[in-house]
């Protein structure tokens, strides 16, 4: 960056001033003075040439660009002159900016998943929740269809409202049969969300009338993947669950609400309040202008009170109206996780800024003399400050640019660590510009504030003092500030490490949780039988039977069985039951209700604790039987044998509805590894006739060798039994477990990567300060050595300094971590947030890093040659 015209002007000014000087000399000589005297006198009269030049140049003004260029040139030159400082400070900043931005971007994308709908903050979910128990909006969308019909007719406060329920649909005739998640939605549903088809039309009220021709809307991914982006798809037929549907449109890319739906059908709601089974609908509304969720809640409650009662049950007394922002129901626990990760990001950013501040302060000390000299030469305070700010800005700009590149790469790398399929619209995740701007801003402020220190000091302290004193005497003044920064760094790093350690511990314990069954060697294949082709329980029983015959006889399989919802699966049916003899089960006591085929318990490796397990004889015609898990037996029949007792699944059991407990089995982790094992009741499939207990079936096979090798044969078996039936999922139980721990593993990895980074930065910080203090005290050390101090003494001296810095850091860090990790408690599994082992390990680790970081300078100090040291210091 050079400006020829400015160079020329500088040259001209120089020439002008020199001409002045020459003329003054000539005149004195002409008056008869000796040339030497004349020159001396003229020069004295003239003053300092450099100062005059500088002041004049300044006065010329307007050359801000020129001055900027000059400052930039000067800044680049000084930065190049101290490459160690430039590289370490630059890299720290770049890594700090890059890592924090990437981390925040990913965490934000994974956890917050901002809703891709226009004015999404006006969207709410509506439900009636039970009054008594804690209500989980995510797994319990709860407006029954008759309530919906009533609500839609009467409500006045919502601008739009729509209902939906999820479906699983088998698509045939477009490649292999495939099972797709879908949704049935009312005409207003898509409008409520603000979604319009990219092609074709949305549903109208006509589509909802019974007997209307079946129609479907396709998701963008399905349209591209299965129909080759056919531009003329609208109006053509697709076969869903064996029924022809007319495609009326395609919805925009990225839209998949609710529950990852890929296709949408009209929801036909019948308004009969006396239906025995009522669909539970997900109801979404858009608030009208000026309407608050509280008002909608009140309206929903009043409509429930006025509405018809169902089946004699006093529904209105037990249900409470709930209205919550849609976002809160989609993002579970995100606020907490986001807080934790944002905290981690903030800590690392703080540490890198502390490091850079430290480096700048050290540099400031070593530049004291330079600044004093420049001030003496007439550079004004503003000029010096401008120059240092320019220098900081150059460093910051370069680091910011590298940091932005690192952020982009970091986002890619972190997403590669993420569990596959968990992050929606992964391709669209770009670097979060707000986070980048924030990181850049914080680092800029640090750079400017600490970069200015030398200018402030140089212009504040009396000139002569600065020039006269050696750097050794001056630098001690901000040794304190640097020490505080290192203490802060150690403390911050410790907080992060403690968090990471706890997450890692939690993850390890989750991996080794007692499941209640033996996962090794198991494969599960899940199928969902469409109601259109499997109309009766008998058809489903026949299907199960045909499948099990083939699966049990595959080479390499020891046994096979079926269960409607296998452990660690996506869903589960839970419910209550009645006891014989008028005794009531505990209030709100629900158990997992499962149906299984004989041989399920030995195949899974679930221990039978009492009684017998199901046999082929427990068929539809035989007396009703049930097997309970240990938790049920202990809770309901404490101190006595459960076997022989009778229960019923019906609310008002008749004489034939009683089931005899024939056995007690071990409890099983039914859903998530981090949830407790839960009470369960098992019934034989053959004694079950309700379709929704039978249409989702998982076949479990125990293999002698690698369970993976059975998968092709299992696929063939299904094809033989029903070629039109799609597989919902097929995988080994070990893979299922891996998937359920994927999210905690991802979180543990993220925070782990982060804390390693923090540790590294803290190490650099400690090294820098110790190395500097050694260099600073070379003189003193030289004297000590000259007076007979041994190497050991010198090393001890340096290590003592490390202890002084590290111990307060550790103490403050432990206190901070104890406070901070309490936030983590809900994210942790089987680990207390103040786990002493983790804390001890983390403290030890940090102490080791500090020790290693200080060892290098300590060794250097011990090799100080007293002669050299004394000369340098004097």
């Amino acid at each position, binding site marked *: 960056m050079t400006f020829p015209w400015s160079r020329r002007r500088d040259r001209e000014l120089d020439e002008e*001033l020199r*001409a*002045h000087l*020459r*003329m003054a000399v000539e005149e004195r000589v002409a008056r008869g003075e000796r040339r030497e005297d004349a020159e001396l006198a003229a020069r004295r009269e003239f*003053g300092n040439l450099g100062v005059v030049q500088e002041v004049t140049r300044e006065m010329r003004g307007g050359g801000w660009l020129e001055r900027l260029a000059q400052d930039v040139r000067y800044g680049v030159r000084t930065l190049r002159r101290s490459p160690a400082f430039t590289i370490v400070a630059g890299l720290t900043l770049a890594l700090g900016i890059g890592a924090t931005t990437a981390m925040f971007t990913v965490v934000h994308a994974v956890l917050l998943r901002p809703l891709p709908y226009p004015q999404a903050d006006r969207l709410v979910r509506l439900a009636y929740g039970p009054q008594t128990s804690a209500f989980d909006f995510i797994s319990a969308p709860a407006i029954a269809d008759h309530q919906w019909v009533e609500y839609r007719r009467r409500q006045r406060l919502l601008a739009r409202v729509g209902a939906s329920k999820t479906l699983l649909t088998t698509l045939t005739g477009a490649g292999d049969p495939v099972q797709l998640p879908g949704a049935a939605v009312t005409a207003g549903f898509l409008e409520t969300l603000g979604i319009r088809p990219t092609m074709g039309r949305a549903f109208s009220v006509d589509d909802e009338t019974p007997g209307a021709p079946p129609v479907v809307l396709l998701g963008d991914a399905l349209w591209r993947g299965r129909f080759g982006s056919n531009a003329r798809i609208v109006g053509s037929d697709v076969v869903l669950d064996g029924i022809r549907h007319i495609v009326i449109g395609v919805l925009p890319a990225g839209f998949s609400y609710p529950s990852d739906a890929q296709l949408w059908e009209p929801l036909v709601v019948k308004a009969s309040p006396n239906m025995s089974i009522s669909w539970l609908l997900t109801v979404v509304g858009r608030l009208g202008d000026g309407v608050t969720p509280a008002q909608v809640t009140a309206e929903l409650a009043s409509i429930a009170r006025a509405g018809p009662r169902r089946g004699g049950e006093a529904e209105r007394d037990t249900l409470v109206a709930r209205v919550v922002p849609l976002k809160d129901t989609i993002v579970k626990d995100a606020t907490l996780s986001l807080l934790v990760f944002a905290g981690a990001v903030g800590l690392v950013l703080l540490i890198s800024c502390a490091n850079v501040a430290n480096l700048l302060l050290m540099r400031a000390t070593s530049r004291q003399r330079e600044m004093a000299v420049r001030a003496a030469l007439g550079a004004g305070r503003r000029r010096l400050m401008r120059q240092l700010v320019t220098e900081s800005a150059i460093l910051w700009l370069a680091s910011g640019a590298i940091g932005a590149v690192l952020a982009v790469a970091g986002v890619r790398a972190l997403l590669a660590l993420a569990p596959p399929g968990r992050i929606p619209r992964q391709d669209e995740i770009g670097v979060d510009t707000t986070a980048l701007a924030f990181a850049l801003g914080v680092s800029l402020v640090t750079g400017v504030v600490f970069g200015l220190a030398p200018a402030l000091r140089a212009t504040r302290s009396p000139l002569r003092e600065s020039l006269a004193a050696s750097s050794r005497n001056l630098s001690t003044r901000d040794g304190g500030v640097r020490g505080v920064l290192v203490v802060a760094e150690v403390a911050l790093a410790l907080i992060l490490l403690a968090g990471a350690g706890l997450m890692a511990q939690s993850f390890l314990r989750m991996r080794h949780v007692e499941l209640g069954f033996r996962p090794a060697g198991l494969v599960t294949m899940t199928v969902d039988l469409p109601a259109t082709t499997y109309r009766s329980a008998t058809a489903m029983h026949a299907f199960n039977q045909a499948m099990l015959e083939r699966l049990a006889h595959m080479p390499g399989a020891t046994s096979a069985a079926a269960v409607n919802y296998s452990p660690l699966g996506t869903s589960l049916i839970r419910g209550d039951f009645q006891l014989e003899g008028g005794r009531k089960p505990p209030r709100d006591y629900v158990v997992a209700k499962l149906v299984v085929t004989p041989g399920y318990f030995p195949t899974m490796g679930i221990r039978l604790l009492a009684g017998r397990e199901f046999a082929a004889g427990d068929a539809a015609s035989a007396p009703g039987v049930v097997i309970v898990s240990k938790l049920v037996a202990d809770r309901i029949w404490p101190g006595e044998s459960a076997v022989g007792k009778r229960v019923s699944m019906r609310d008002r059991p008749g004489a034939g509805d009683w089931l005899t407990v024939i056995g007690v089995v071990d409890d099983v982790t039914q859903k998530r590894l981090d949830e407790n094992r839960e009470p369960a009741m098992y019934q034989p499939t053959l004694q079950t006739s309700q379709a929704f207990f039978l249409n989702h079936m998982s076949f479990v096979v125990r293999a002698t060798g690698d369970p993976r090798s059975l998968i092709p044969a299992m696929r063939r078996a299904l094809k033989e039994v029903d070629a039109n039936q799609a597989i919902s999922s097929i995988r080994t139980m070990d893979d299922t477990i891996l998937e359920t721990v994927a999210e905690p593993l991802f979180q543990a990895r993220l925070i782990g990567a982060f804390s390693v980074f923090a540790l590294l930065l803290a190490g650099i910080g400690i090294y820098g300060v110790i190395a500097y203090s050694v260099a600073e005290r070379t003189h003193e050390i030289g004297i000590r050595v000259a007076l007979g101090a041994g190497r050991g003494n010198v090393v001890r001296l340096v290590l003592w300094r490390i202890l002084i810095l590290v111990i307060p850091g550790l103490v403050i860090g432990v206190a901070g971590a104890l406070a901070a990790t309490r936030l983590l408690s809900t994210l942790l599994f089987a680990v207390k947030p103040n786990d002493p082992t983790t804390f001890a390990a983390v403290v030890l680790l940090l102490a080791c890093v500090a020790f290693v970081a200080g060892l290098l300078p300590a060794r250097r100090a011990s090799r100080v040659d007293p002669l050299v040291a004394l000369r340098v210091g004097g």
Partner: protein
Amino acid sequence: MAKEQRGLSRIELLQGTLDLIILQTLRWGPRHGYGLAQMIRANSREALQVDTGSLYPALHRLERSGAIAADWELSENRQRVRVYRLTPAGRKQLAAERSRWDQLSEAIAGILAPPAPEGEA
């Protein structure tokens, strides 16, 4: 003695005053920096000795504001010198500053030599 003079010239650094002196001096014809300094000294009967550190910044500032213009010329002893001359804008500025100076000195003179009080105090 020299010290006092230096102190005096420091006072003259008051902006405006130096500008007035430079502009007024340039009325007699174009001058280079050294010549100007000499002339100011001579015209003030050696009372004002303008620092180069004040003179050149002032010259360059005035040049930038358009009150004076500069050209390179060859001096008597054939060396390149930068010669400053008054521009029309500079003439106007001079007139304005002059009247301001007259007002100021009149006011100060009035303060220093108050007229005899009229009537009884």
